[in-house]
C-alpha cells in the first residue's frame, strides 16, 4: 500500500532537516522524499498534512506496562495502544513487574506480547535478582533477550557495591545503569518535605534522599567509568549535581517527567491521590531548575514514568495509595504546552529529548528520514488545542491529575512497523 504525506514539515534534529516536503511511504518504507510524480500521487492515498510536523517516532524510555503481574491495571497491549495514541512508536518498560524482568524468560515474554504492534517495546532488565539489591541479575542473558538498559526502578540499587558492579559489568554493552534515586534510609514519605507537607500533616520525603543517590552514583560512575542515567530527576540540587558532573566529563544523562516540570506540591492541598507519585511533586524552585536543566541540556530526555493503577488501589486513603500516574497520552501535549509554547525549548530541542536522545542513551538506531529506510515517525499538530478526557484513554487505567486540562499540541498520526494509527484506527501500510 502506498500513502503520501503531503506538504508535511519534516523535522529531524539528528539529520538537521527542517523543511516542508511530500513523503511517499510504500509498504512501511520511505520510498521518496519530495519530487513525487503525478503517477505516484494518483496511485496513493494522500494525506494533507500541511502545517503539521513529521518527526522521528517518539520514544518514551520510562513506562510501566504492569504485565506480567498486574494485568488488571495495564497490559503490554493496552500500554502500547496508549503509547501510540500519545504519539510514541517505542517505549522502554521498567522491570518492576511480577515476576520482575530479571530473567530472559520474562524479557522474552514481554517481547512476545508486543509482537506485531506498531509500538516497539524494549524491556529494561532488573539490575538485581528480584530487584532485591543483593546480587546481579543475569545481565548478559537479559541483553541477549533484548534488554536495552538496567534499573531496579521503584527503588534505588541497594548498595554502593552493587552500583559499582552493575556499572562495570554494563561497560561490556555500553548500556546504562538507570537509577531511581532515593536513599533507602530516608525514603518512605507520601509527598515532598516542605512547608506544604507541614501544613498537610503528611509524612514527607526530603529532596536530599534523591540528591544523595544522585551524588553516590555520579561518584561511582566517575570512578569506574560507567554509564549512568538518572531517572525522573525532580530536585534542584540533583539538576545541579548532574550539570556539574557533565562538566567534569562523567558519562551521565538524565530524564524528567512532564509532571515534574508542570506541577508543584501546592496541588497536594486537595489530598487527591492522583498527585501522589515518587519522586513527589516538588516546589516551584525545583520546577524552575528543571526547566533550566532542560534548556541547557543538563536534562537529556523527557519520559513519562507512565504508572497505571487500578481505580480501587488509587482511590485509597492518601498514605496508603500507590505512587504514580499515567503519562503516555498526555506527555506530548504537556511538553508542547509547557515547554515549547512557553518558549523554554524549540520544537527541535523537544524532539531531541523525546526521540533522539532516549535512543542514543539506550544504544538504539535513530530512525532516519531517508529513502529506503523504514518509516518510523510521528506526525504532530503543534497548534491543536484539545481537552484531556481520561475516559477516552487507551490505557486500562484512569489515574491522571490532568483530566479536563486544556493542552496545545497533539500527535495526529504515528507510523511504524508497516502500520499507521490515524483517527483512532490502525491500518496496515
Amino acid at each position, binding site marked *: 500500500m502506498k500513502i503520501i504525506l503531503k506538504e508535511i514539515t519534516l523535522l529531524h534534529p539528528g539529520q538537521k532537516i527542517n523543511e516542508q516536503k511530500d513523503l511517499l511511504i510504500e509498504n512501511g518504507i520511505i520510498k521518496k522524499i519530495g519530487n513525487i510524480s503525478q503517477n505516484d500521487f494518483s496511485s496513493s492515498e494522500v494525506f494533507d498534512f500541511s502545517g503539521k510536523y513529521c518527526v522521528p517516532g517518539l520514544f518514551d524510555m520510562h513506562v510501566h506496562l504492569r504485565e506480567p503481574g498486574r494485568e488488571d491495571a495495564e497490559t503490554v497491549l493496552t500500554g502500547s495502544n496508549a503509547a501510540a495514541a500519545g504519539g510514541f512508536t517505542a517505549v522502554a518498560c521498567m522491570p518492576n513487574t511480577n515476576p520482575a524482568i530479571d530473567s530472559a524468560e520474562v524479557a522474552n515474554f514481554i517481547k512476545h506480547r508486543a509482537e506485531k504492534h506498531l509500538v516497539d517495546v524494549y524491556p529494561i532488565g532488573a539490575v538485581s535478582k528480584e530487584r532485591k539489591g543483593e546480587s546481579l541479575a543475569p545481565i548478559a542473558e537479559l541483553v541477549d533477550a533484548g534488554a536495552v538498559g538496567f534499573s531496579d526502578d521503584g527503588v534505588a540499587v541497594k548498595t554502593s557495591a552493587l552500583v559499582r558492579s552493575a556499572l562495570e559489568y554494563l561497560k561490556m554493552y555500553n548500556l546504562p545503569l538507570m537509577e531511581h534515586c532515593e536513599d533507602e534510609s530516608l525514603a518512605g514519605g507520601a509527598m515532598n*518535605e516542605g*512547608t506544604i507537607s*507541614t*501544613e498537610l*500533616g503528611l509524612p514527607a520525603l*526530603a529532596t536530599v534522599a534523591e540528591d544523595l543517590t544522585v551524588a553516590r552514583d555520579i561518584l561511582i560512575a566517575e570512578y569506574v567509568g560507567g554509564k549512568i542515567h538518572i531517572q525522573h530527576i525532580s530536585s534542584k540540587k540533583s539538576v545541579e549535581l548532574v550539570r556539574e558532573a557533565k562538566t567534569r566529563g562523567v558519562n551521565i544523562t538524565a530524564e524528567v517527567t512532564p509532571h515534574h516540570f508542570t506541577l508543584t506540591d501546592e496541588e497536594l492541598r486537595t489530598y487527591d491521590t492522583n498527585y501522589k507519585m515518587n519522586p513527589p511533586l516538588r516546589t516551584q524552585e525545583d520546577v524552575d531548575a528543571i526547566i533550566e536543566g532542560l534548556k541547557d541540556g543538563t536534562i537529556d530526555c523527557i519520559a513519562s514514568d507512565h504508572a497505571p493503577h487500578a481505580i480501587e488501589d488509587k482511590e485509597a*486513603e*492518601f498514605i*496508603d495509595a500507590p505512587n504514580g500516574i499515567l503519562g503516555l497520552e498526555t506527555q506530548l501535549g504537556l511538553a508542547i504546552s509547557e515547554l515549547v509554547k512557553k518558549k523554554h525549548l524549540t520544537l527541535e530541542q523537544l524532539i531531541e529529548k523525546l526521540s533522539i536522545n532516549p535512543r542514543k542513551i539506550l544504544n538504539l538506531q535513530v530512525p532516519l528520514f531517508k529513502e529506503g529506510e523504514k518509516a518510523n515517525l510521528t506526525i504532530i499538530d503543534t497548534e491543536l488545542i484539545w481537552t484531556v478526557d481520561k475516559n477516552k484513554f487507551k490505557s486500562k487505567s484512569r489515574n491522571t491529575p490532568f483530566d479536563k486540562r486544556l493542552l496545545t499540541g497533539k500527535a495526529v498520526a504515528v507510523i511504524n512497523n508497516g502500520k499507521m494509527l490515524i483517527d483512532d484506527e490502525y491500518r496496515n501500510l
Partner: protein
Amino acid sequence: MSLAINHLLGLQNVSKNDIQLILDTAVTFREVLDRPIKKVPTLKGTTVVNLFYENSTRTRLSFELAEKRLSADTLNFSTSTSSTKKGETFKDTVRNIEAMKIDMIIVRHKSAGVPLYLTKISNASIINAGDGQHEHPTQALLDMYSIREKLGKLKGLKICIVGDIRHSRVALSNIYGLKTMGAEVSVCAPPTMIPKNLETFGVKVYTDIHKATRENDVLNVLRIQLERNAGSSIPSLREYHNYFGITSEVIEKNNKDILILHPGPINRGVEMSSEVADGPYQIILDQVTNGVAIRMAVLYLLGTKN
C-alpha cells in the same frame, strides 16, 4: 447565630467568629454537665457515626458521651485495618454506612486528608477526630476553652506547645486556632521533632524548656510516643525527660504562674513528672470534662445547621 462551616475538618480555615461561637456554646453545655440530669433533647432523631480507623479511647468516649448527652442515635465503627490489606475499601465502607441514612460522621484515621475526602464521597456532616499528623480540631478547641476558662482570655496570651510537633495532630490545630484568636504561639522541642519550615507559620521555636517556661503563660505538653521516637528523634526517653520534661523544678525555677495542659494520655516520667501531672499548675482533668462540652457544642452547631 450559626457557623459558616458545614464540616469541622480542621481549624486552618475556621474564622474567629466560628471559633468564638463554638467556645461560647460550649459554656452552656458545660453547665449541663453539672446538672443531675445531664441530657438534652437537642439532637433527637439525628444519627451520628463514630468512624474510628485508629485506636482511640478518650476521644471516642468523649464524642460518644457528647452524642448521648444530646440524645443523638450513635453508631460505632472501629477498625484498625486499612485498605492496604485487601478487603472492603474505605470508600465502600463509607458508602455502605451512608446508605443506612446517617447525618454526621466523626472520623479518626491514620491518613491525613481522610476527613476532606469524606466530604467528597458523603453527604453527611463531617467532624475530624484526628487525621494522621494533620489536625485534631476538637482537641485544640477544648484546649482553648480550658485556657480561656482558667485565664479569662486567649488574646495576647503566650502559649508554647512542647513535644513531638512533627508527628502531632494536636499541634497544628492549636497553632491555627490560637493564632486566629490572637494568642502568640511557640513550640519547644529538639529540632528532630520540629516539622520543616514551621517558622513560616508564624511560630517561634524554642529548644530550651527553661526559657520556654519563663517566657510563656501556658505550656501545652504533648505525649511522647514511646514506640515512635526513642532511638530516632531522641536518644532515649530518659534524656528527653532530663532536657525537655516538665518537672516541679522547671516550673518553680522559671515561672510559678504557668498553666500546664496535656491532651493525654500522659507518659508519666517522660514528658511530665507525676508531681506536675497531679500538681497545682495543671488542668488536665478539666480539659477532659471540657472536651465533652466542646464536642457537644460542635455536634449541636453542625447537627442543627441544615
